């Protein structure tokens, strides 16, 4: 076990590209770190995996949101988790030693994106009660709402490094309050390797760690991440058996948290039931991959697990047949509240349980 740093766990913010996002969830198991939900809570920014070019500016913005003293650590693909953790701890120690000098400067200029063009005595611009455009922003206009009301609409892009969303996913949402009136999902695309068995189970556990964190169960999320890390260290039969037993214990504990009650009825999608059903299928799939490989000892470890899963005749979402249709998903999210949209996206397991098709050209 690593030596705990003397200043407590280091809060880190993870900015991960689509390929590295799943394995970056294993950082939740490390007691030396505390994976923060917001970059403003973090000291060190961990940049994981290859990032799509379009995300460079978003990365700079995220970096500038970290409060001083701050540092960033790159996690190249192929580097072990232990090395990254050691680098983070070392960066934090350096910051504590020389907070003023070692803290990284801003990457983007600290300039008001909407310069003030006010005229009136109280800062209003233009004439009349609308105030013109005092900060370069037009007044919000009301838009049709349901039930015959009219409510302000706000368009905001969430992602690609937002903690509750999968890495690389952008949600362009038009919100009235917190209800989505229009949603578009963009993702650079991610293919999931066809390897079954322990690798698929590990991806499933990484999904579980993130999903539990999104639902407010941080302690349980750390436990799931620890199981994923355990599988990563060795894929032999004894490890898989112990992970399977631990997973069963974790599922029993989840029953006491009221998670199934909160998931029931949320995130209903056509033909796929609600979030609870998808969670149950995912957990069954993970357990099947763990036990299937154990049964198929001597078989090819690369592709044996998937075959065992399919032989049982169950739809196994950890080895899915259809990837997610982002356009249909965006259309289905309309009318839901923002947190229900997050719950829906989480329960689908984009990037961990299911591959994501490469985005087509944007229509507008």
């Amino acid at each position, binding site marked *: 076990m690593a030596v705990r740093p003397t200043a407590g766990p280091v809060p880190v913010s993870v900015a991960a590209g689509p390929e590295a996002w799943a394995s970056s969830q294993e950082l939740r198991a490390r007691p030396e770190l505390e994976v923060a939900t917001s970059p*403003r809570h973090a000291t060190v920014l961990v940049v994981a995996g290859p990032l799509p070019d379009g995300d460079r500016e978003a990365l700079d913005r995220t970096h500038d949101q970290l409060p001083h003293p701050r540092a960033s650590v790159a996690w190249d693909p192929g580097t072990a988790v232990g090395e990254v953790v050691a680098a983070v701890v070392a960066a934090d120690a350096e910051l504590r030693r020389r907070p003023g000098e070692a803290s990284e400067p801003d990457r983007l200029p600290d300039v008001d994106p909407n310069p003030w063009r006010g005229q009136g005595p109280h800062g209003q611009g233009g004439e009349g009660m609308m105030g013109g455009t005092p900060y370069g922003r037009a007044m919000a206009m009301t838009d049709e709402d349901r039930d015959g009301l009219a409510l302000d609409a706000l368009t905001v892009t969430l992602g690609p490094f937002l903690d509750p969303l999968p890495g690389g996913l952008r949600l362009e949402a038009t919100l009235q309050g917190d209800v989505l009136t229009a949603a578009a999902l963009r993702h650079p695309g991610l293919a999931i390797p066809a390897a079954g068995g322990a690798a698929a189970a590990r991806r499933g556990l990484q999904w579980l760690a993130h999903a539990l964190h999104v639902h407010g169960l941080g302690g349980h999320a750390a436990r799931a991440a620890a199981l994923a890390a355990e599988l990563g260290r060795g894929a032999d039969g004894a490890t898989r058996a112990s992970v399977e037993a631990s997973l069963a214990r974790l599922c029993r504990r989840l029953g006491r948290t*009221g998670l199934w009650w909160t998931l029931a009825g949320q995130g209903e999608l056509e033909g796929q039931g609600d979030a609870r059903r998808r969670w149950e299928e995912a957990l069954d799939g993970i357990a099947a991959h763990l036990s299937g490989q154990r049964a198929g000892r001597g078989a090819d470890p690369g592709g044996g697990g998937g075959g065992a899963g399919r032989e049982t005749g169950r739809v196994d979402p950890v080895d899915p047949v259809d990837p997610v249709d982002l356009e249909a998903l965006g259309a289905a999210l309309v009318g839901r509240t923002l947190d229900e949209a*997050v719950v829906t996206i989480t329960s689908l397991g984009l990037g961990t349980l299911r591959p994501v098709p490469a985005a087509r050209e944007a229509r507008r």
Partner: protein
Amino acid sequence: MTAARQLHPVPAVALVGAVLGIGSYLVAVTRAGVTARVAGQRLGLAAITVAPLRRARRLLGQQVTTTERPDSATWVLAPAAYAGLAALALSVVPLGPGTAVADVDTGIVVFGAAEVLAVVAFYLHGWSPNSPLALAAGYRHVAAALSYALLSMFVLIAAALPAQSLGIGAIVDSQAGLWNVLRQPLGLPLLLVVALGVTASGPLDLLDGTDLAGGGGAEDSGVQRLAWEGARAVMLVAFAAGAAAVFLGGWHGPLLPGWAWMALKTAAVAGLLVVVQVQGARVSAERFVAVSWTVLLPLAFLDLLAAGVVAL
């Protein structure tokens, strides 16, 4: 009936400050311990007791970031008002026989008012940073707050009926023979649901929820964040003390002095709340409002009806 001794202002402030300070530290330690246990991490007692202090030191050294055109005055006011309301709620709770900062005749109403005024702090916490996720989180928590505020009113008034007085000291005195938790079994569970909402934690952590990337606290950093999280712990202590006084017989108990019993009971309620906080999955605001109005509120009516029938 024990006459409540009104404390001089200076020792009163010191007493409230000490209780809230020590209590919030113990709450933080307990939460660290329970989280480590749930996560399966082996942490020694030394590590757990020092963890909140290290966290506080780290936050003190962090820069307070700002967003584009927040309302700075209300952003700073929110945790200050929240902590002040917790102090107000604690000041009407008798901490020992005849020891209360201000055991007024309408103590239970003041206690309820402090909890309702906290809604203002929640709203300002969500609105001030001028950030869409913070605003959405603040609004959904206010929607839940308006639902649990009603619950608390009925439950607290039902507890006041056997005492025939709205003062918390009188309510404690009326439990000399039988505690309210036995006399009104529905009351304490409902009040604990309210406590989770008032401290915005556990299943009702809608205000700083991880599904909205930290919600109202997403834009907080440094001292601002420390102040808000400290205020939440302080409110937990104050509410637990109130629940212990109103339902668990306050300072009544054999052998030990009154303040020791009060401390034990407050610690028990606070500990239970911390365990539920760490182990409770978040409920959506929509679901909570539905359950609150269709199930919990009728139960609160029943509780009040039963208490009224017994009192007559």
